[in-house]
């Protein structure tokens, strides 16, 4: 009767284990890094979108504040010039009046939401009209040289 020969030499199983475990570790690490990067990117993107929406909400609140001023300025005035003079007196902080346009800015890090509304003549149903409502991104200054 022939004796069976053992095909696997001593140490071969350990070698295979090391190779397999190292490969699995490498793949797990890459998967983990990839998932973490995806998560961080999505989180940053969602945070930025949320903050921009919050800026929009703030600009609408400022518009409401301005509209209340316009309502009170409309009382007992006749003519656009008197109306504008009265508005200029009561203008909320952070807003500037230039001719019939009111400008203000909502800041966010290196971005600014620039808002411009036009004042419509007193007595009209609408008191303001949006002219500009845009997000301006300031590019960060480069602090390095070639």
């Amino acid at each position, binding site marked *: 009767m022939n004796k069976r020969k*053992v095909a696997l030499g001593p140490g071969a199983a350990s070698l295979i284990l090391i190779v397999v475990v190292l490969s699995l*570790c490498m793949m797990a690490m890459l998967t983990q890094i990839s998932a973490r990067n995806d998560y961080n990117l999505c989180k940053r993107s969602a945070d930025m979108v949320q903050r921009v929406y919050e800026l929009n*909400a703030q600009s609408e609140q400022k518009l409401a504040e301005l*509209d209340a001023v316009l309502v009170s300025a409309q009382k007992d005035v006749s003519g656009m010039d008197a109306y504008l003079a009265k508005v200029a007196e009561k203008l909320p902080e952070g807003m500037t009046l230039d001719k019939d346009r009111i400008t203000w800015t909502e800041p966010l890090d290196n971005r600014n939401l620039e808002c411009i509304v036009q004042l419509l003549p007193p007595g009209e149903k609408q008191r*303001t009209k949006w002219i500009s409502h845009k997000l301006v991104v300031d590019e960060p200054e480069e602090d390095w040289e070639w």
Partner: protein
Amino acid sequence: MKEGSRANALLVELLLVIFFFMISAAILVQVYGDAKLKSRTAHATNYSMIEAQNIAEDLYGSDDPDAVLAEYGFTAEGDAWVLQKDGYKLQVTLKNEETESGTLRTYNVSGMEKDQVLINLPSTRFIPKEVSP
């Protein structure tokens, strides 16, 4: 070396290899599970952000928000409108604030995964009312 003792040594080595492989596998399964969880949250955040933006913009421009929400498939649950999606939930709540000259209407569109808020977009619109001078 005798054939018998060689086989025994191999058997012991195999047992040790299996033991260490089990330990490594247990650790690696945890790492993969964690990565999968993170990936799922990232997916939910991304899709809920896109959906929430669409809904917030639609609500901002609409005069009949209930119809807009019903069209998206939202159902009313108490004070909130809720829509269950694949892996996340969208929730919309309304807040009306009366000011001297009009109404400040705010819709909070939130994307949620279980109880965790992934994104919360306030869609605010000022609706002026007619005031006689």
